[in-house]
């Protein structure tokens, strides 16, 4: 039966894959992770606006990789000494002595470029994991699990989520209006004429939405006593510090050693405690709460398998996860991690298909405002189709 999976299940699944991706720089494994993300997103996303966002995350990942590679080539500091493959040599700019350690230009080596590429790919992969979670889970429903203590944050996020798409519409509307005055619709000169009405509009809409939420009881009895607020804040800050230290020790692979696990656990416990104190006075209920059933467990398990496998690196060598670039070697294909990542793809089958919203067969009587008449901006006049229309 089609239903929407619990948003937290998707987030845990994506975090599992992200954990795995953070442990490897093997390009084949990383590409495999991207493939798994793409497969699950294509299979189980809904039809809402945010469900079409995955391609933008992919694009963002490409940008990250490009920045990484280009900056490495420019400021890489490769000397070309030793047994390396020099691809080409950029003109070298000598820097003053106080900038020691930074080098501008110089030889660009295959080894340096590859390691930048792998690192960029890893970062892009992490981005795409977050993107997949955002695409698969309705962000507004995910916000509902936010503890009551964080309701101010909730207002801000809901307002942003609602106003951002309207901003696009508002820009189109104002640009059309600019043309009515014969003003420029592009370039710096047009900026003021467009930005000011749009910002005014956005500000007004945000205020109206926040007022509507307030008068419908959002954050009701959320005004905890100042002492409870301070306690919540303190617990959260200390807890977050613990989480950061623990996560760094665990995933960064650096030598914090035995400290990392207790820090992680202690941090989580403090965070939970803080939220519990803050939420004690907030009472809310959920209309049609998202159930947590077998598919949710299955999806979380699918995400947990690669995470655990990569963390304990059982049954395969570390070189399989992090192929060496000094000296240059072909990345290998360790079989167990590959299987682990492929298990995550099963989430695309384990999760039920999402609900499709009922579509109106006839789009009846939409409000005039909702239909942007002539939202073609300034490019309209020059389009060939228009010329045909005009001369017909």
């Amino acid at each position, binding site marked *: 039966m089609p239903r929407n999976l619990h948003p937290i299940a998707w987030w845990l699944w994506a975090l599992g894959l992200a954990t795995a991706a953070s442990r490897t720089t093997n390009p084949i494994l990383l590409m495999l992770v991207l493939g798994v993300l793409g497969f699950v997103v294509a299979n189980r996303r809904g039809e809402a606006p945010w469900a079409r966002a995955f391609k933008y995350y992919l694009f963002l990942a490409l940008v990250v990789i490009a920045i990484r590679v280009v900056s490495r080539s420019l400021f890489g500091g490769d000397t070309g000494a030793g047994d390396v493959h020099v691809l080409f040599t950029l003109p070298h700019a000598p820097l003053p002595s106080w900038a020691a350690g930074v080098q501008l230009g110089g030889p660009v080596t295959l080894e340096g470029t590859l390691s930048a590429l792998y690192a960029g790919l890893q970062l892009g992969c992490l981005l795409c994991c977050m993107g997949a979670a955002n695409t698969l889970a*309705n962000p*507004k429903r995910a916000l509902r699990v936010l503890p009551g203590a964080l309701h101010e944050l909730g207002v801000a996020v*809901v307002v942003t989520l*609602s106003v951002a798409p309207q901003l696009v519409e508002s820009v189109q*509307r*104002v640009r*059309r*209006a600019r043309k*009515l*005055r*014969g*003003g420029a619709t592009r370039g710096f000169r047009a900026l003021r004429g*467009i930005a000011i*009405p749009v910002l*005014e509009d956005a500000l007004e*809409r945000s205020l*109206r*939405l*926040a*007022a*509507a*939420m*307030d*008068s*419908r*009881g*959002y*954050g*009701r*009895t*959320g005004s905890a006593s100042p002492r409870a607020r301070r306690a919540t804040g303190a617990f959260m800050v200390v807890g977050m510090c613990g989480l950061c230290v623990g996560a760094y020790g665990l995933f960064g692979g650096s030598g914090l050693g035995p400290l990392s696990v207790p820090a992680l656990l202690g941090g989580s416990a403090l965070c939970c405690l803080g939220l519990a104190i803050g939420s004690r006075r907030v*009472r809310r*209920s*959920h*209309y*049609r*709460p998202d159930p947590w059933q077998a598919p949710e467990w299955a999806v979380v398990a699918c995400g947990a398998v690669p995470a655990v496998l990569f963390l304990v690196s059982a049954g395969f060598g570390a070189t399989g996860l992090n192929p060496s670039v000094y000296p240059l070697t072909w990345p290998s294909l360790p079989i167990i991690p590959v299987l682990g990542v492929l298990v995550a793809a099963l989430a695309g089958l384990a999760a039920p298909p999402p609900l499709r*919203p*009922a579509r*109106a067969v006839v*789009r009846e*009587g*939409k*409000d*005039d*405002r*909702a*239909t*942007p*008449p*002539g*939202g*073609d901006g*300034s490019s*309209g006049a020059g389009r060939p*189709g*228009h010329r045909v*229309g*005009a001369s*017909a």
Partner: protein
Amino acid sequence: MIELDHVSVTYAGGSSPVLRDVSLHVEEGELALVVGRTGVGKSTLLGVINGLVPHFTGGTLAGRVLVAGRDTRTHPPRELADVVGAVGQDPLSGFVTDTVEEELAYAMEQLAVPPDVMRKRVEETLDLLGIAELRDRALHELSGGQQQRVAIGSVLTAHPRVLVLDEPTSALDPTAAEEVLAAVTRLVHDLGVTVVLAEHRLERVVQYADRVVEVRADGTVAAGLPAPMLAVTQVAPPVVELGRFARWDPLPLSVRDARRRAGPLRERLSARPVPPPRRTTPQAAMGTTPGTPTGVVLSARGIVVRYGAVTAVRGVNVDLAGGEVTALMGRNGSGKSSLLWALQGSGRRQGGTVDVNGTDPRSLPAAKGRRLVGLVPQTPADLLYLDTVLQECEQADRESAGASSVGARALLDRLAPGIADDVHPRDLSEGQRLSLVLAVQLTAAPKVLLLDEPTRGLDYRAKRSLVGIIHLLAAEGRAVVVSTHDVEFVAAAADRVAVMAAGDLVADGPTAAVVGASPAFAPQVAKILAPLEYLTMDQVRSAVAGVD
């Protein structure tokens, strides 16, 4: 139920209070209608009731407000959510979720209503407001009337005892407005909900009101039974104006009551010829200003506008004559805006031709096109971006240098006298802002002027002065097109009415013929005096003046 005790509200930076020493008492189960001119503080009065003023807006509130026994001093809006439901003017901007059902449940979730009760209440509310078939629909694809009903439903599910509605029908066509008002009156009569409602177009609601609350310009408030109150209010719908004019007592508030009293008046008027609806007919205007073009100034053939799979305008033919005022009517979404933008040339147009003096405005750059056809969009503020009225006027003069001998500032003084140079355009009233944008567009001296829903948010007096402005423009030989839902405005302003439905032009003819015959579109005076072909109070006045 609602008790205001010597309440005064002063906003931060305001020199004088918006509300001054207001004492008001609204009983349980009443429908209280808040009337008053634009900008006098009707919205402030409504905001006071659910605590948005001053908790959300800032400002100082003196006195005491009790709603169902709770003092708004100690109860912010969220703590009043279970007794007061408030719906704003633009329902879409207040929606928090994405679908109808989730939106209906939102307030209950915040109030921690148990899930099984929520399911039951959502179903009840869907039926009560007649929106059951919309339950899974996305909110942004509903029509204006449906959105407004969902917005009312979304506060009703919390079972509030007071409902506060700020101009719930201002953006709606007559039929959608009827739907919403029918739902509201049903709540009052069947459930005993107390409703406080602000509205500009009184002709729609005054017959349902149990109490009329008038907010005056100085911030004081008077309240009383509808008939005696309306006999003296500054704003009045045509039925009341007719009643005042004919000195009927008690004052009839509905068309039905007025019609029963109007027998003698009809008899008296039937002996006279019906005066023309407009004092300055196009012919007269052309006579006074020789040299203006006679006949057709804009001719459009086979206009087609499409958005993806949706066809908004299907092959419409329009001819606009100089000196003529045309009203464009039709449901929300029937293609009125799309047609106007296509005629202007800067909007989308997939087919057809527009001919203004042998030129298609779209073939010209935007700065030249606006000298042929001017358009004032639905949100005139989109055109304004400078800090003062004077700067806007000077910018407008630069934009259309050489087109007109009269500057924007002079035009503005003619349209709306008394606007200071250094006022920020945002601080102007709706009517003044509209005048400013009109002045800006008129500097280009277009022969054709298109106005998209200019009557939104205007009170009777502002509308009357807009009628004057439109007639002035027509008298200069321009063709003027006004798209609007307001039948009373059409009756007073237009020579000709074109009605659009689903992208087609379904009716086009003289105002009296098109509007007078239609049950949905007929103005109140026409309904009361039928079969006599009167449309406006001005006609009745001049006819009676002729009799005496």
